[in-house]
């Protein structure tokens, strides 16, 4: 393939992702096996007769030498088998399928809030540098970054749910309020079934968690967009664009703003890690029945097998997302394809 073509670039990125997956999974395996004892004993020890524990250990291959376990783990993970929890009859894959839609729905809604807030305030702050707007935007960015998401969430609950009684503070829409589950994405489901009452309830439940999480991510966006905007605004080609007599809004949007967004796409990979971490907290705060909440539950139950499976899945998603972002950058910015 030709140098600089998109296909070649994607292939390159894919090849680079392989050692990343390999090392990440190895690290996780080592980390989770650094704890003494085995998952079955840790979870069920004392609650089941020793024979049954031994039997279960045998069945899970925990009596094999560590390198055999490692090879099995790697092989399974790469073929999409993340194992079985000790404390839950479902497989990890099934758990992911059951809970991930809730998490993704929350994450997407939060991202939407974050992008709208971050890009508008950030770009304006950069343009109106050192004005009260800029100072306000920066302070908000710092303040919201400094506030733990669970605390903001609690304050939001205190005010909007308890004090004003406007919005539900806990859970997703449930029971009769929930739409008929088709995809697991409630917003999508209620639109597919054209159930407007359900859509209202679903959205009402989504508002507080999504805005709480979105504000936090938005704070980071504000800072990034502002700095990038400052950099591109003083770049040579922006000056050159002004020298060609282009209108100020064209200079700002086509020349400064568009290039300012590229590093932001790149940084979204890291943002994604931050999103997951804070999704754990947000789900816990709003008892949102997502994947992160499931992970927290298994950690509480000391279910190593489930934790390992879910974390492995998260790790693969992270590599996938960073790959996706690399490709996206390549699409937008022709320079990086070389």
């Amino acid at each position, binding site marked *: 393939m030709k140098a600089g073509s998109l296909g070649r670039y994607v292939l390159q990125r894919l090849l680079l992702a392989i*050692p*990343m997956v390999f*090392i*990440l999974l190895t*690290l996780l395996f080592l*980390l*989770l096996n*650094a*704890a*003494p004892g085995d998952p079955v004993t840790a979870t069920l020890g004392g609650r089941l007769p020793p024979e049954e524990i031994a039997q279960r250990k045998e069945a899970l291959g925990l009596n094999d030498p560590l390198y055999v376990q490692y090879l099995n783990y790697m092989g399974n993970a790469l073929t999409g088998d993340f194992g079985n929890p000790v404390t839950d009859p479902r497989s990890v894959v099934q758990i992911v399928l059951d809970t991930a839609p809730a998490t993704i729905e929350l994450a997407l809604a939060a991202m939407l809030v974050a992008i709208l807030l971050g890009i508008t305030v950030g770009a304006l702050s950069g343009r109106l540098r*050192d004005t009260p707007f800029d*100072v306000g935007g920066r302070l908000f960015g*710092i303040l919201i970054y*400094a*506030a*733990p998401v*669970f*605390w903001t969430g*609690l*304050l939001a*609950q*205190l005010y909007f749910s*308890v*004090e004003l009684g406007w919005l539900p*503070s806990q859970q997703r829409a449930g029971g009769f309020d929930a739409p008929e589950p088709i995809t697991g994405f409630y917003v999508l489901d209620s639109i597919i079934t054209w159930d407007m009452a359900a859509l209202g309830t679903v959205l009402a439940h989504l508002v507080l968690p999504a805005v709480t999480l979105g504000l936090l991510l938005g704070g980071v966006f504000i800072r990034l967009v502002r700095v990038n905007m400052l*950099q591109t605004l*003083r*770049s040579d*080609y922006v*000056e*050159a664009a*002004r*020298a*060609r*007599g*282009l209108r100020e809004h*064209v200079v700002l949007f086509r*020349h400064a703003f*568009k*290039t300012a967004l*590229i590093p932001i796409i790149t940084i979204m990979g*890291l943002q994604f*890690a931050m999103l*997951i*971490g*804070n999704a*754990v*907290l947000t789900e*816990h*705060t709003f008892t949102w029945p997502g994947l992160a909440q499931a992970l*927290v539950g298994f950690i509480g139950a000391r279910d190593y097998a489930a*934790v390992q499976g879910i*974390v492995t899945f*998260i*790790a693969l998603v992270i*590599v996938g997302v*960073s790959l996706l972002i690399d490709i996206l950058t390549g699409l937008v*910015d*022709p320079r990086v394809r*070389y």
Partner: protein
Amino acid sequence: MTSTSTSGDDAVLEARTPLKTRLQHAWRPFRESSRVSRGLIFSGLGIIAAFLLLAFVGPLVYPYDGTQYRAETSPGEFTSFPELAPPSAEHWFGTTKDQFDVLARIIDGATLAFAVMALAVSIAMLIGVTLGLFSGYRGGRLDRILVTAMDAVYAFPPLVLAIIVSFVLAAYLSPGVPSAAAAVGLVYIPQYFRVVRNHTLSVKEEPFVEAAKSFGARNRTVLGRYVFFNVVQTVPVILTLNAADAILVLASLGFLGYGVQPPTPEWGYDISQAVNDVAAGIWWTALWPGLAIVLLVMALTLVGEGLNDVINPLLRAKGKAGRKIKGMPRARRRDRSRRAADAAEQDDEGLAAKVRDLRVGYRTASGPLWAVDGVSFDIKKGETVALVGESGCGKSSMGRAMLRLMPPGGVVGGQVEIGGTDVATAPESEVRKLRGEGASLMFQEPMTRLNPLERVSDHFVEMIRTHKPKTSREEARAMARDALVQVGIPPTRIDNYPHEFSGGMRQRVMLALSIVLTPRLIVADEPTTALDVIVESQILSLLERLRAEENVGILFITHNLGVVAEACDRVAVMYAGKIVEMGPVDEIFTNPKHPYTRGLVASTISLNTTELRSIGGYPPNLIDPPKGCRFAARCPHVMDHCTESPPELTEVGPEQRAACFLYPGAGQPVPEGVVAPSGDPQVSGI
């Protein structure tokens, strides 16, 4: 945080300068930083100091501690605290459902937070720096594996990682400060690793380290010092931001129940205990611990951000655009008819541009600086005027001012008439229309002047349609192709991206952009400096053809006198913001009048040069310029009154003018016995 590569010279300098000088050097950006940055740092430091006081003096002063649920009212007599009491004189921040005093828990929580923070950051720094040094120094496969591993860890959600680590650690350690610190700290290792490793790697390849190696084992010392000095500049920022993050991760672990052993006071754990209170409308158990987190994290972030502003000069604040400078001559407002009359007159004279008393100023920390201070000249249509002078004499400022393209904090005064518009005073919309159509600017560095995300054709179409909105896309593309052909670029490449062209080709694209709307004036600001000789002569002959065929006036800014001789009709010599001599190119070269011009001409190598001459000394400081002639301090012919009042430009030959007291008419009589130098400066010197 990415590393900055430093050139070999800098590296040598940094490795050899004594510590004290280096520290002073490091302090300088701080002193020069904006008030905002310093304000950020100091208010942050203030809050941190308050928290330190709270954490370490608070427990001694405050009557209760965090796990106390009753107080001794009289010897042997205990009164239990109330449950969930709102803030009162007795319990300032209220009490919890476990009858604990909220303020006492916040104080103890602060002590714990500082302990975990300090330990966590130390763990991360120690391991990260050691591994980074090792990995960068060793290189090879081990380095590659470590880098990928660190990247993998870095991409992983820090909180999830911290949860897993504390989950595994719980099997070995009972929950407490060390295990929490380890879980929090391990997460930040990659950041230190990256910085240190990159610096180590870059210095390892420096020639001076190679050289040191050949003399013995000194390279380790050199390496250590170099890396240390570079890391010292980046680590404080990472460190404060990590400390801020550590507080958040610790609180998050506590909130999820993986932090320290309950009921040890910890802000995050306390908030998790308050979840049920919130549903009952009780606010004080959740509000105060959260507020403590917000304040401390914010303070640390402020310090980190402020330090980053100080250390990263790119973000250092400059002035606001358009602020008035004291001493600015008031803009002369003219009515429309006068302006139209001027335009007509200008056309009669065949002028491409008329510059009168042009002043360009910048706001600086030490006061206003007039980079161009009262300059007047004309450029006729079909004429190339060279503007020459040392770097920093105001040439580029003047080029920008011709189109009023000022950086923030810059102002233009005086008069610049181009095609009937006074660029210095006209409203922005009018000046904008002039840019690109009436007058265009060619820049020095072609590599960075085109938008990397847009095709060359986009640049053309966008510009043509801005100025001529009725042009269709296709017509605009046709015009673009014509312009590209004129500068010798195959029109088939119109849809290529800038990075697909070489530097010389990009400059030709810039030239094509400058001429596509046939302006009456082109300001070329050192357009060939970055290019090789062959490309340079191509660009020069293109400009020459434009001048001759399209009757364009060209202001050619350069410090290369060879180019001036080849390509220009007249020369204006600039020194410290003023024109000191102006005349036809032949006269300036064979018969320069001003001592500075003589020095300039003499310092260029020509075939008759037997020795290379240079002008001693440096140009004056323009923030506080000398009262008299600005060249006086360096002038070999300096007289008493040269330092008292500035000389005026005066006729010294046919169409040749110079600002020097050696010639009658400059303002002061020439004292008896003083004779102006004459003849070929190459031979006579100055």
